[in-house]
Protein backbone atom coordinates (compact mmCIF):
# COMPACT_ATOMS: atom_id res chain seq x y z
CA UNK A 1 0.00 0.00 0.00
CA UNK A 2 2.85 2.35 0.86
CA UNK A 3 4.50 1.49 -2.41
CA UNK A 4 1.34 2.39 -4.34
CA UNK A 5 1.13 5.78 -2.65
CA UNK A 6 4.78 6.48 -3.33
CA UNK A 7 4.41 5.70 -7.04
CA UNK A 8 1.39 8.00 -7.27
CA UNK A 9 3.13 10.92 -5.56
CA UNK A 10 6.29 10.54 -7.61
CA UNK A 11 4.31 10.42 -10.86
CA UNK A 12 2.42 13.59 -9.93
CA UNK A 13 5.57 15.44 -8.98
CA UNK A 14 7.30 14.46 -12.20
CA UNK A 15 4.47 15.81 -14.32
CA UNK A 16 4.26 19.13 -12.45
CA UNK A 17 8.02 19.70 -12.46
CA UNK A 18 8.26 18.95 -16.17
CA UNK A 19 5.44 21.34 -17.07
CA UNK A 20 6.75 24.19 -14.94
CA UNK A 21 10.28 23.78 -16.22
CA UNK A 22 9.30 23.97 -19.87
CA UNK A 23 7.13 27.02 -19.34
CA UNK A 24 9.81 28.78 -17.30
CA UNK A 25 12.45 28.14 -19.92
CA UNK A 26 10.32 29.85 -22.56
CA UNK A 27 9.08 32.61 -20.34
CA UNK A 28 12.41 33.89 -19.17
CA UNK A 29 13.99 34.08 -22.59
CA UNK A 30 14.65 37.72 -23.39
CA UNK A 31 17.15 39.19 -25.76
CA UNK A 32 18.75 42.56 -25.27
CA UNK A 33 21.48 44.06 -27.33
CA UNK A 34 23.11 47.47 -27.22
CA UNK A 35 25.38 49.22 -29.61
CA UNK A 36 26.46 52.63 -30.88
CA UNK A 37 25.68 52.93 -34.52
CA UNK A 38 24.01 55.46 -36.75
CA UNK A 39 21.59 52.79 -37.87
CA UNK A 40 21.24 50.26 -35.13
CA UNK A 41 20.06 46.79 -35.89
CA UNK A 42 19.67 43.96 -33.50
CA UNK A 43 18.18 40.52 -33.26
CA UNK A 44 16.48 38.80 -30.39
CA UNK A 45 15.53 35.33 -31.42
CA UNK A 46 13.02 35.86 -34.19
CA UNK A 47 12.74 39.64 -33.57
CA UNK A 48 14.82 42.14 -35.52
CA UNK A 49 14.39 45.88 -35.93
CA UNK A 50 16.46 48.72 -37.30
CA UNK A 51 16.48 52.37 -36.21
CA UNK A 52 17.72 54.98 -38.65
CA UNK A 53 18.09 58.74 -38.45
CA UNK A 54 15.60 60.70 -40.54
CA UNK A 55 15.81 64.05 -42.22
CA UNK A 56 15.51 67.06 -39.96
CA UNK A 57 12.75 69.47 -40.86
CA UNK A 58 14.54 72.68 -41.80
CA UNK A 59 11.23 74.51 -41.96
CA UNK A 60 10.13 73.67 -38.46
CA UNK A 61 9.44 75.92 -35.51
CA UNK A 62 11.67 74.39 -32.85
CA UNK A 63 12.28 77.33 -30.51
CA UNK A 64 13.31 77.69 -26.86
CA UNK A 65 10.67 76.95 -24.25
CA UNK A 66 9.10 79.72 -22.22
CA UNK A 67 10.60 79.88 -18.76
CA UNK A 68 7.24 79.41 -17.08
CA UNK A 69 4.80 78.17 -19.67
CA UNK A 70 7.07 75.61 -21.29
CA UNK A 71 6.78 75.03 -25.00
CA UNK A 72 5.92 72.64 -27.75
CA UNK A 73 9.55 71.61 -28.32
CA UNK A 74 10.94 70.21 -31.52
CA UNK A 75 10.29 67.18 -33.67
CA UNK A 76 12.67 64.25 -33.69
CA UNK A 77 12.92 62.38 -36.99
CA UNK A 78 13.85 58.73 -37.29
CA UNK A 79 12.46 55.49 -38.64
CA UNK A 80 11.96 52.07 -37.09
CA UNK A 81 12.03 49.20 -39.56
CA UNK A 82 10.71 45.84 -38.50
CA UNK A 83 13.03 43.43 -40.27
CA UNK A 84 11.48 40.37 -38.67
CA UNK A 85 8.60 38.20 -39.76
CA UNK A 86 6.35 39.04 -36.84
CA UNK A 87 4.61 42.33 -35.99
CA UNK A 88 6.20 44.46 -33.30
CA UNK A 89 5.22 47.40 -31.11
CA UNK A 90 7.45 50.09 -29.65
CA UNK A 91 7.36 49.92 -25.88
CA UNK A 92 10.06 52.33 -24.76
CA UNK A 93 12.34 55.07 -26.08
CA UNK A 94 15.15 56.40 -23.95
CA UNK A 95 18.11 58.68 -24.45
CA UNK A 96 21.33 56.73 -24.57
CA UNK A 97 24.73 58.02 -23.56
CA UNK A 98 26.54 54.93 -24.71
CA UNK A 99 29.78 56.03 -26.29
CA UNK A 100 29.93 59.30 -24.35
CA UNK A 101 33.54 60.21 -23.74
CA UNK A 102 32.87 62.30 -20.64
CA UNK A 103 30.27 62.71 -17.96
CA UNK A 104 28.96 65.97 -19.42
CA UNK A 105 27.82 64.10 -22.50
CA UNK A 106 24.06 63.80 -22.56
CA UNK A 107 23.51 61.68 -25.63
CA UNK A 108 22.53 64.76 -27.64
CA UNK A 109 24.99 66.35 -30.01
CA UNK A 110 24.86 69.52 -32.10
CA UNK A 111 26.64 70.98 -35.08
CA UNK A 112 26.65 74.56 -33.74
CA UNK A 113 28.22 76.43 -30.88
CA UNK A 114 26.37 78.89 -28.68
CA UNK A 115 28.25 81.79 -30.28
CA UNK A 116 26.68 80.90 -33.62
CA UNK A 117 29.75 79.30 -35.16
CA UNK A 118 29.65 75.82 -36.61
CA UNK A 119 31.55 73.11 -34.79
CA UNK A 120 34.81 72.15 -36.41
CA UNK A 121 34.38 68.60 -35.15
CA UNK A 122 31.13 67.12 -36.37
CA UNK A 123 28.58 66.88 -33.61
CA UNK A 124 30.76 68.60 -31.04
CA UNK A 125 28.94 71.93 -30.88
CA UNK A 126 28.12 73.44 -27.49
CA UNK A 127 24.44 74.03 -28.28
CA UNK A 128 23.76 70.46 -27.13
CA UNK A 129 23.86 71.64 -23.53
CA UNK A 130 20.64 73.64 -23.94
CA UNK A 131 18.56 70.69 -25.07
CA UNK A 132 16.73 67.92 -23.23
CA UNK A 133 15.02 64.79 -24.46
CA UNK A 134 11.41 64.17 -23.50
CA UNK A 135 10.26 60.60 -24.08
CA UNK A 136 6.64 59.82 -24.92
CA UNK A 137 4.72 58.98 -21.78
CA UNK A 138 2.68 56.28 -23.49
CA UNK A 139 3.03 54.15 -26.58
CA UNK A 140 -0.59 53.03 -26.67
CA UNK A 141 -1.29 55.22 -29.67
CA UNK A 142 1.76 54.03 -31.56
CA UNK A 143 0.81 51.69 -34.38
CA UNK A 144 1.97 48.12 -34.66
CA UNK A 145 4.76 47.75 -37.20
CA UNK A 146 3.91 44.98 -39.61
CA UNK A 147 6.53 42.40 -40.59
CA UNK A 148 9.08 44.12 -42.82
CA UNK A 149 7.23 47.39 -42.37
CA UNK A 150 8.67 50.79 -41.41
CA UNK A 151 7.32 53.30 -38.96
CA UNK A 152 8.29 56.90 -39.70
CA UNK A 153 8.62 58.94 -36.53
CA UNK A 154 8.67 62.72 -36.98
CA UNK A 155 6.52 65.75 -36.46
CA UNK A 156 4.67 65.66 -39.75
CA UNK A 157 3.65 62.01 -40.03
CA UNK A 158 0.04 61.02 -39.63
CA UNK A 159 0.45 60.48 -35.91
CA UNK A 160 2.97 63.25 -35.08
CA UNK A 161 4.84 60.63 -33.10
CA UNK A 162 8.11 62.55 -33.00
CA UNK A 163 6.60 65.89 -32.01
CA UNK A 164 7.97 67.54 -28.90
CA UNK A 165 10.67 64.97 -28.16
CA UNK A 166 13.39 67.62 -27.89
CA UNK A 167 13.18 70.82 -25.87
CA UNK A 168 15.44 73.85 -25.60
CA UNK A 169 15.90 75.81 -22.40
CA UNK A 170 14.44 79.31 -22.24
CA UNK A 171 17.92 80.81 -22.05
CA UNK A 172 19.24 79.03 -25.11
CA UNK A 173 21.69 81.44 -26.71
CA UNK A 174 20.89 83.30 -29.90
CA UNK A 175 23.65 81.44 -31.71
CA UNK A 176 21.75 78.16 -31.53
CA UNK A 177 19.26 79.24 -34.18
CA UNK A 178 19.27 76.83 -37.09
CA UNK A 179 21.33 74.21 -35.25
CA UNK A 180 21.00 70.51 -36.03
CA UNK A 181 20.70 68.14 -33.09
CA UNK A 182 21.20 64.38 -33.01
CA UNK A 183 19.76 62.37 -30.14
CA UNK A 184 21.09 58.89 -29.58
CA UNK A 185 18.19 56.65 -28.65
CA UNK A 186 17.48 53.28 -27.16
CA UNK A 187 14.37 51.97 -28.88
CA UNK A 188 12.74 48.93 -27.32
CA UNK A 189 10.13 46.94 -29.18
CA UNK A 190 8.18 43.83 -28.32
CA UNK A 191 6.43 41.25 -30.39
CA UNK A 192 2.92 42.50 -30.88
CA UNK A 193 0.17 40.31 -29.56
CA UNK A 194 -2.75 40.40 -32.01
CA UNK A 195 -5.47 42.52 -30.56
CA UNK A 196 -8.69 43.66 -32.15
CA UNK A 197 -8.69 47.33 -32.95
CA UNK A 198 -4.94 47.91 -33.05
CA UNK A 199 -3.52 49.82 -35.97
CA UNK A 200 -0.84 48.21 -38.05
CA UNK A 201 1.75 50.29 -39.83
CA UNK A 202 2.43 48.66 -43.22
Amino acid at each position, binding site marked *: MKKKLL*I*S*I*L*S*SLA*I*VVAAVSV*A*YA*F*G*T*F*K*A*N*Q*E*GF*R*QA*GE*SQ*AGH*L*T*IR*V*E*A*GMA*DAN*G*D*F*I*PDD*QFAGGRG*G*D*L*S*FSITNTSAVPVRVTKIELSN*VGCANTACTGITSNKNTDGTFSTILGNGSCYSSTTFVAPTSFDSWPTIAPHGTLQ*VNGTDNYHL*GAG*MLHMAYN*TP*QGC*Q*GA*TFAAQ*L*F*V*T*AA*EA*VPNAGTLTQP
Partner: protein
Amino acid sequence: MTPRQRWSRQARRGLLIGAAAFLSTAPLNASLALAAGTWTITVTGRGISESAEMPMGKLPTATVLEKSIRLEWAPSMYPTGIEVSSYAVMRQVVGSKDAVKVCTVASPMRACEDSPPTGQPVIYTVVATEQLWHGPASAPTNPVTLPAPTVVAAAAVSSPSPSPSPSPTSTPSPTASPAAAPSPTPTPTPTPRPGIH
Protein backbone atom coordinates in the same frame (compact mmCIF):
# COMPACT_ATOMS: atom_id res chain seq x y z
CA MET B 1 -6.13 -9.96 -10.11
CA THR B 2 -2.66 -10.70 -11.44
CA PRO B 3 0.32 -8.66 -10.21
CA ARG B 4 0.61 -7.12 -13.65
CA GLN B 5 -2.98 -5.92 -13.59
CA ARG B 6 -2.42 -4.56 -10.11
CA TRP B 7 0.66 -2.60 -11.24
CA SER B 8 -1.19 -1.19 -14.22
CA ARG B 9 -4.04 -0.06 -12.03
CA GLN B 10 -1.63 1.68 -9.66
CA ALA B 11 0.10 3.43 -12.54
CA ARG B 12 -3.23 4.70 -13.92
CA ARG B 13 -4.17 6.00 -10.52
CA GLY B 14 -0.82 7.78 -10.26
CA LEU B 15 -1.30 9.43 -13.63
CA LEU B 16 -4.76 10.60 -12.61
CA ILE B 17 -3.41 12.16 -9.45
CA GLY B 18 -0.59 13.75 -11.45
CA ALA B 19 -3.00 15.22 -13.97
CA ALA B 20 -5.11 16.64 -11.16
CA ALA B 21 -2.02 18.26 -9.64
CA PHE B 22 -1.05 19.75 -13.01
CA LEU B 23 -4.50 21.25 -13.50
CA SER B 24 -4.41 22.75 -10.02
CA THR B 25 -1.24 24.65 -10.97
CA ALA B 26 -2.58 25.63 -14.42
CA PRO B 27 -2.71 29.40 -13.78
CA LEU B 28 1.00 29.43 -13.00
CA ASN B 29 1.80 27.47 -16.11
CA ALA B 30 -0.42 29.69 -18.26
CA SER B 31 1.25 32.89 -17.16
CA LEU B 32 4.67 31.52 -17.85
CA ALA B 33 3.63 30.22 -21.21
CA LEU B 34 2.17 33.64 -22.04
CA ALA B 35 5.44 35.24 -21.06
CA ALA B 36 7.04 33.22 -23.80
CA GLY B 37 5.34 35.57 -26.29
CA THR B 38 6.84 38.79 -24.85
CA TRP B 39 10.02 38.88 -26.80
CA THR B 40 11.61 42.30 -26.56
CA ILE B 41 14.48 43.88 -28.37
CA THR B 42 16.41 47.10 -27.75
CA VAL B 43 18.25 48.86 -30.53
CA THR B 44 20.31 52.02 -30.66
CA GLY B 45 19.69 54.60 -33.35
CA ARG B 46 19.60 58.34 -33.82
CA GLY B 47 16.87 60.91 -34.15
CA ILE B 48 17.52 64.23 -35.82
CA SER B 49 16.05 67.65 -35.14
CA GLU B 50 16.74 71.18 -36.26
CA SER B 51 16.03 74.40 -34.45
CA ALA B 52 14.19 77.23 -36.14
CA GLU B 53 15.60 80.43 -37.48
CA MET B 54 13.75 83.55 -36.42
CA PRO B 55 11.77 85.18 -39.21
CA MET B 56 12.29 88.78 -40.20
CA GLY B 57 10.15 91.53 -38.74
CA LYS B 58 7.58 93.15 -41.02
CA LEU B 59 7.78 96.79 -42.05
CA PRO B 60 5.59 98.80 -39.65
CA THR B 61 3.31 101.61 -40.68
CA ALA B 62 3.79 104.75 -38.63
CA THR B 63 0.91 107.12 -38.00
CA VAL B 64 1.66 110.46 -36.42
CA LEU B 65 -0.90 111.31 -33.78
CA GLU B 66 -1.22 114.45 -31.70
CA LYS B 67 1.13 113.34 -28.91
CA SER B 68 2.52 110.03 -30.09
CA ILE B 69 3.32 107.90 -33.04
CA ARG B 70 1.32 104.74 -33.57
CA LEU B 71 3.01 101.74 -35.16
CA GLU B 72 1.32 98.68 -36.60
CA TRP B 73 2.77 95.74 -38.48
CA ALA B 74 1.91 92.37 -40.01
CA PRO B 75 2.69 89.10 -38.22
CA SER B 76 6.02 87.32 -38.58
CA MET B 77 5.46 83.60 -39.04
CA TYR B 78 7.50 80.45 -38.97
CA PRO B 79 7.28 78.26 -42.07
CA THR B 80 4.79 76.11 -40.18
CA GLY B 81 2.38 79.05 -40.03
CA ILE B 82 2.81 79.71 -36.32
CA GLU B 83 3.36 83.31 -35.29
CA VAL B 84 6.37 84.31 -33.24
CA SER B 85 5.64 84.93 -29.58
CA SER B 86 6.71 88.56 -29.33
CA TYR B 87 8.04 91.63 -31.07
CA ALA B 88 10.40 94.43 -30.19
CA VAL B 89 9.99 97.88 -31.73
CA MET B 90 13.19 99.84 -32.15
CA ARG B 91 13.47 103.62 -32.61
CA GLN B 92 16.42 105.31 -34.19
CA VAL B 93 17.04 109.02 -34.58
CA VAL B 94 17.80 109.77 -38.19
CA GLY B 95 21.53 110.07 -38.60
CA SER B 96 22.28 108.16 -35.42
CA LYS B 97 23.61 104.65 -35.23
CA ASP B 98 22.01 103.84 -31.90
CA ALA B 99 18.59 102.26 -31.69
CA VAL B 100 16.52 102.05 -28.53
CA LYS B 101 13.82 99.55 -27.79
CA VAL B 102 10.58 101.45 -27.28
CA CYS B 103 8.08 98.61 -27.11
CA THR B 104 7.93 94.92 -26.36
CA VAL B 105 4.69 93.41 -27.61
CA ALA B 106 3.44 89.86 -27.10
CA SER B 107 1.65 88.37 -30.08
CA PRO B 108 -1.04 88.32 -31.30
CA MET B 109 -0.89 92.08 -30.56
CA ARG B 110 1.01 93.93 -33.23
CA ALA B 111 0.69 97.61 -32.37
CA CYS B 112 2.56 100.08 -30.24
CA GLU B 113 2.55 103.81 -29.46
CA ASP B 114 5.68 105.78 -28.88
CA SER B 115 6.33 109.37 -27.86
CA PRO B 116 9.68 110.32 -29.28
CA PRO B 117 11.28 113.72 -28.71
CA THR B 118 9.35 116.28 -30.62
CA GLY B 119 10.67 117.86 -33.71
CA GLN B 120 13.18 115.12 -34.30
CA PRO B 121 12.87 112.77 -37.28
CA VAL B 122 13.02 109.14 -36.27
CA ILE B 123 12.66 105.78 -37.96
CA TYR B 124 11.22 102.55 -36.58
CA THR B 125 11.96 98.89 -37.17
CA VAL B 126 10.27 95.73 -35.87
CA VAL B 127 12.17 92.65 -34.67
CA ALA B 128 10.60 89.24 -34.05
CA THR B 129 11.76 87.79 -30.73
CA GLU B 130 11.57 84.49 -28.86
CA GLN B 131 13.10 84.38 -25.36
CA LEU B 132 16.73 85.39 -25.98
CA TRP B 133 16.41 84.91 -29.69
CA HIS B 134 15.72 87.68 -32.18
CA GLY B 135 15.44 87.73 -35.92
CA PRO B 136 16.54 90.24 -38.51
CA ALA B 137 15.03 93.71 -38.18
CA SER B 138 12.40 94.80 -40.62
CA ALA B 139 13.04 97.50 -43.18
CA PRO B 140 12.85 100.92 -41.51
CA THR B 141 9.86 103.19 -41.78
CA ASN B 142 10.17 106.48 -43.54
CA PRO B 143 11.35 109.19 -41.12
CA VAL B 144 8.52 110.54 -39.03
CA THR B 145 8.57 113.56 -36.74
CA LEU B 146 6.36 114.18 -33.80
CA PRO B 147 5.42 117.86 -34.00
CA ALA B 148 6.23 120.10 -31.12
CA PRO B 149 3.19 120.91 -29.04
CA THR B 150 1.61 124.07 -30.23
CA VAL B 151 1.91 126.55 -27.40
CA VAL B 152 -1.27 128.53 -27.65
CA ALA B 153 -1.44 132.03 -26.36
CA ALA B 154 -2.63 130.71 -23.09
CA ALA B 155 0.84 131.23 -21.84
CA ALA B 156 -0.67 133.19 -19.02
CA VAL B 157 -1.08 129.94 -17.25
CA SER B 158 2.46 128.90 -16.77
CA SER B 159 2.82 125.59 -18.47
CA PRO B 160 5.01 123.17 -16.52
CA SER B 161 6.64 122.00 -19.67
CA PRO B 162 9.81 123.96 -20.31
CA SER B 163 9.32 124.76 -23.92
CA PRO B 164 12.59 124.66 -25.74
CA SER B 165 11.57 127.62 -27.81
CA PRO B 166 14.54 128.95 -29.64
CA SER B 167 13.23 132.49 -29.49
CA PRO B 168 14.24 134.17 -26.26
CA THR B 169 11.65 136.87 -26.57
CA SER B 170 8.06 136.01 -26.09
CA THR B 171 6.74 136.71 -29.48
CA PRO B 172 3.04 136.26 -30.04
CA SER B 173 3.68 133.65 -32.68
CA PRO B 174 5.20 130.68 -30.92
CA THR B 175 5.35 128.48 -33.95
CA ALA B 176 8.40 126.38 -33.67
CA SER B 177 10.63 126.75 -36.62
CA PRO B 178 11.47 123.44 -38.24
CA ALA B 179 15.12 124.31 -38.30
CA ALA B 180 15.18 124.15 -34.54
CA ALA B 181 15.30 120.37 -34.45
CA PRO B 182 18.96 119.74 -35.18
CA SER B 183 20.08 122.55 -32.87
CA PRO B 184 22.97 121.67 -30.60
CA THR B 185 20.96 122.62 -27.57
CA PRO B 186 20.70 119.76 -25.12
CA THR B 187 17.44 118.25 -26.07
CA PRO B 188 15.77 115.96 -23.58
CA THR B 189 17.27 112.54 -23.79
CA PRO B 190 15.14 110.16 -25.83
CA THR B 191 14.11 108.03 -22.97
CA PRO B 192 12.15 105.07 -24.19
CA ARG B 193 8.52 105.37 -23.29
CA PRO B 194 6.99 102.10 -24.14
CA GLY B 195 3.39 102.41 -24.98
CA ILE B 196 2.57 98.71 -24.75
CA HIS B 197 4.24 96.00 -22.78
